[in-house]
């Protein structure tokens, strides 16, 4: 099949970017979208033009490294990661526009590569249980209702790709942050630090410059792992409860 690709090219973080149009004449419907770019890159190199830079790693939909805003959707028209999107999704002769994630907190590094380290910093603010290696109780000491364990898993399945931010008109990271807060709010292991966790992670999210959720639910519609906005409601609950009742008098979380 033949494809016309409009791709965002940008030399570096401070360079001005622009769209460039390429023709891919030998795409196969069985190719993944990234393999199609691989093929194009091979052709570009042979022509002496630098390959298009894009993030990718596992190519099986779990590492969360691939991104790309394809024809107006993060990860393209299907609710999967870009690496799991195949060319059979597109029509022969179609023009496909490929852009990087856009958000103040995700600056473009080169071409389609963006900096998502803000997500790591939010996790560092409290996305864990404070236990040292060793000296923990037996794994079966605390029974957890299956429903609760399953719901915690559903939240924990987030791959941190940033599609929620890319999809949101406010570049809000709340689906991402709420997934982690939910996981630990549900599990008994997370109870001890429940309040501080909500406060600190939200504060870091705000400090990174992500927007507020206005409940359009674009994130849920685009999330490749099907994370639910019910998690955002839970985060709202957790945060509000924490701010109103935690013992910390000084600034707990939020604000600028």
């Amino acid at each position, binding site marked *: 099949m033949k494809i016309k690709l409009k791709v965002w090219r940008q030399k570096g973080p401070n360079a001005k970017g622009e769209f460039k149009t390429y023709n891919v004449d030998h795409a196969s419907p069985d190719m993944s979208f990234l393999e199609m770019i691989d093929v194009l890159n091979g052709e570009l190199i042979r022509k002496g033009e630098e390959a298009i830079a894009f993030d990718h790693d596992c190519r099986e939909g779990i590492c969360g490294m691939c991104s790309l805003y394809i024809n107006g959707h993060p990860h393209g028209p299907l609710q999967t990661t870009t690496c799991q999107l195949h060319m059979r999704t597109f029509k022969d002769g179609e023009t496909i526009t490929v*852009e990087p994630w856009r958000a103040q907190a995700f600056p473009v590094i080169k071409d389609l590569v963006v900096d998502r380290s803000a997500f790591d910093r939010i996790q560092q603010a409290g996305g864990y249980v404070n236990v040292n290696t060793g000296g923990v109780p037996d794994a079966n000491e605390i029974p957890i209702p299956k429903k609760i364990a399953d719901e915690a898993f559903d939240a924990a399945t987030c791959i941190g790709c940033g599609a929620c931010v890319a999809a949101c008109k406010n570049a809000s990271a709340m689906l991402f942050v709420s997934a982690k807060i939910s996981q630990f709010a549900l599990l008994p292991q997370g109870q001890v630090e429940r309040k501080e966790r909500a406060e600190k992670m939200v504060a870091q999210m705000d400090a990174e410059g992500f927007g507020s959720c206005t*409940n359009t639910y*674009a994130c849920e519609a685009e999330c490749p792992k099907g994370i639910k906005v019910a998690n955002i409601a839970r985060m709202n609950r957790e945060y509000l409860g924490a701010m109103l009742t935690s013992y910390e008098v000084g600034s707990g979380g939020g604000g600028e």
Partner: protein
Amino acid sequence: MRSIFDSHQNLLLNMKWLIDLFSSSLGRKVVMALTGLFIILFLTVHLIGNLQLLKDDGGEAFNVYAYFMTHNPLIKTISYVNYAFFVFHIVWAIMLTRKNRSARGAEGYAITNTSTIWSARNMGILGTVILVFLVIHMRQFWGEMHFGTVPFKTYGAQEVKDLYTICADAFKNWWYVALYSISMVAIAFHLWHGFASAFQTLGINHSKYNPVINFVGKVFSIVVPALFALIPIVMFTL
């Protein structure tokens, strides 16, 4: 011994969490949700009052109601809270919008294809339309009622301002009725998203209650603005 100055400083320090709460991304939304829900309650009461306009009694019921609303001390207090909440709702909306715009970054997308509903994405525009209406509306009725020269009418022993006539006159202007109706459409769309959205923001999202919230929200967002709009249309055609 600690001085008064010290304890004041402590008080300020003690309140910092509150300021942080309401200036955080989540807290801002909570302000929107709480004030929004209050305004929804207000709309209900307002509608009940307005419906008195349709009573065929030469405006007595409506005028008595208007008098009650402007003279009962409890209602008066609540009305000041209501004004404040309107202001909060508007000011916080502006702050939110500015913050959200800047979060999106300088470079936008060339193409966006979204599956979200229109009203959810355009709450700001809808709100602005409603705000314009609100200004005209306040000037027309609330302003007249409080500061204008309104003729009096006497019911029994009580002398009350005849707001009914002001309304009836205003609703003879086709353009005002049109503006009123269009604004009600904006309010309907605003509520279509806003009603259920407020519950989500306050953390009320539960598979047992979501259907009820959504259903009531949709019904409310259609019925209430429709009834509001019905009144001037009926009075125009009378």
